[in-house]
């Protein structure tokens, strides 16, 4: 390689495709959307740019219920995913043996089918005349009029199901990297199973916990498919509102403002969560990686 080229800023040249992509497909649309969110008008008469900041406050006051519900559902789904995903990732990482890859594949395989089809299948499975409902009614867990579809439970479970792999895979990746000798050292130093898990395994898997919870929570909070297919308007989330404002009502400024509010809130949540749970653990294992 010629020194001249190197000096001329090869790093910038290499950066260009990525940076260009980011500008063209992220920054620019975001700018358009910001522009859009500050317009005033009606779907019928059209919208004009007007520094109409009130779009934001109006959006919040009008749809605060859906906002709260989104975070509630996403939080619940993240929690359930964690409770299901951690033991699963743990078993695959430490007890998987030669079945490891097969088990991981089993986690991913359902996702070869598209999101929409999978969720539609759940609609069928949970439907009022489906086998699950009638079985639960027979054994008396569900009342005569009881149903599964169109409830909060069905929406939350749908979200959990759809984002579970995003929880399991990062957890697995961080658990799998833990040196088993560290666990032996824990037992050797008079640690019982619980001690070793709480003091060694869990702290060392924190990067996976942080990554997994974020990867589950962020898309879950913006999701609208599950609420649409497995719920009713009473379960509608902010994603449903944005979708209908854009595509059905044609109220672009409100939809854009809602998107920005969602983005801002998520960013705040991510930063706080990463600070509380992440930094120390992330730095700790990052160093371990560097040493190895």
């Amino acid at each position, binding site marked *: 390689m010629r020194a001249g080229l190197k000096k001329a800023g090869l790093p910038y040249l290499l950066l260009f495709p990525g940076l260009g992509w980011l500008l063209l497909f992220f920054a620019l649309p975001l700018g358009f959307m910001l522009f859009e969110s500050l317009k005033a008008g009606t779907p019928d008469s059209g919208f004009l740019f007007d520094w109409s900041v009130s779009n934001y406050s109006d959006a919040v006051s009008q749809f605060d219920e859906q906002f709260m519900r989104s975070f509630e559902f996403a939080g619940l789904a993240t929690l359930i995913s964690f409770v299901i995903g951690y033991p699963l990732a743990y078993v695959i990482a430490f007890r998987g043996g030669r079945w490891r890859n097969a088990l991981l594949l089993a986690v991913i395989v359902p996702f070869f089918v598209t999101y929409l089809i999978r969720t539609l299948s759940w609609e069928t499975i949970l439907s009022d005349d489906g086998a699950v409902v009638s079985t639960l009614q027979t054994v008396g867990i569900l009342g005569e009029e009881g149903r599964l579809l169109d409830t909060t439970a069905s929406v939350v479970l749908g979200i959990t199901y759809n984002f579970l792999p995003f929880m399991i895979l990062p957890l697995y990746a961080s658990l799998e990297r833990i040196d088993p*000798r560290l666990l032996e050292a824990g037992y050797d130093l008079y640690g019982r199973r619980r001690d070793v898990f709480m003091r060694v395994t869990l702290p060392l898997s924190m990067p996976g916990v942080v990554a997994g919870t974020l990867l589950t929570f962020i898309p879950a909070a913006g999701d609208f498919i599950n609420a649409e297919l497995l719920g009713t308007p009473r379960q509608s989330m902010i994603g449903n509102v944005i979708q209908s404002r854009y595509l059905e009502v044609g109220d672009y400024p409100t939809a854009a403002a809602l998107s920005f509010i969602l983005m801002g809130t998520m960013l705040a949540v991510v930063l706080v969560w990463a600070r509380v749970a992440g930094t120390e653990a992330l730095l700790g294992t990052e160093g371990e990686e560097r040493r190895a």
Partner: protein
Amino acid sequence: MSHEGQGGAAPSVSLRGVTKRFGDFTAVRDMDLDVPRGQFFTMLGPSGCGKTTTLRMIAGFEEPSEGTVLLDGEDVTGLPAFRRPTNTVFQSYALFPHLSVERNVAFGLERRRVSKDEVRRRVGEELERVGLAREAKRKPRQLSGGQQQRVALARALVNRPAVLLLDEPLGALDLKLRKQLQIELKRIQQDVGITFIYVTHDQEEALTMSDFIAVMNRGVVEQLDGPEEIYERPSTTFVAGFIGVSNLMPGEVVSTGTGTAELRLDAGPTVRTGAAGATVGERAHAVVRPEKLQLHATNGTGPDGHPSVDGQVESSLYLGTATQVIVRLPDDTHMTVLVPNTDEEARRRLPAAGHGARLTWSTENIHMVRDLAAGAVHDDEGIKA
């Protein structure tokens, strides 16, 4: 937990008929072993000889397929690691990367619910001992290899275990640091008086540090003795070959006496050696250490009356304090001779490469060794503490 007060009757660690199998592979075979209290005890052998597996069974990381493990005379077979009064220094240290040096060292004490003040005091003392008091707040990754090794040692020793198990703890360090830490480890062991069981494949390390050495091969202990005995009087062909430079001359036993035997070497002469329990007609080896051999030119100047064997000088290497000469015997056995460079005049008279040479030795410096399968080795096993 203090173990110093207990009577000296039981060995620190005893293995009784311990066998460990992994599938078809037998890592440790019917082992009986007593480790005397308060000693620096080394298990030495090539990789795959079962030394680390033995250590792991004492620590409680592996359970024996057969046999029992006793600590201070108490059967601990089947007890999990956290219930055993042993601590381990791991090969790659296994320091907790997310905890500071002092939190690493405090880990064991905290698990045993020692009061906070005492934990702080003992951790401080232990870090002082290994010279890392100033690094207490650091993370392991911020330390050098030698410092990490010291933290691992402090983390184990602070618990005052009945037995400290060390699995090739110096293996990852460079030679100079190894030498330094060997001396330091030995000093610490004498200082605290805890039984150390040290696993290594480095024979020099074993000879330097140990009170007792168990030389292991293929899952069995071939010889258990002090370093001097191991070096001077190896009892099997394997031990003779593994420790030091091997000068093994094959031959056949032609007669036996009390504690001696006569061996007709394949290289020609019949020699008298120290030996126990040999049978006439058996194949065996005579072993002489390189520094115990004298080298003469074969033009008749060699002293008569001494046992000797003739050969041809193959190469000669100046080592500074000594000259190493390789002599090939008629049966193609290669003998290494170490001639100290004390007399420049004598050094010049040494036969050059290609010339005939005669090797002589005193009878007390030659020993007969046999393969383990020939038996009699188990006489030496199990030291009376």
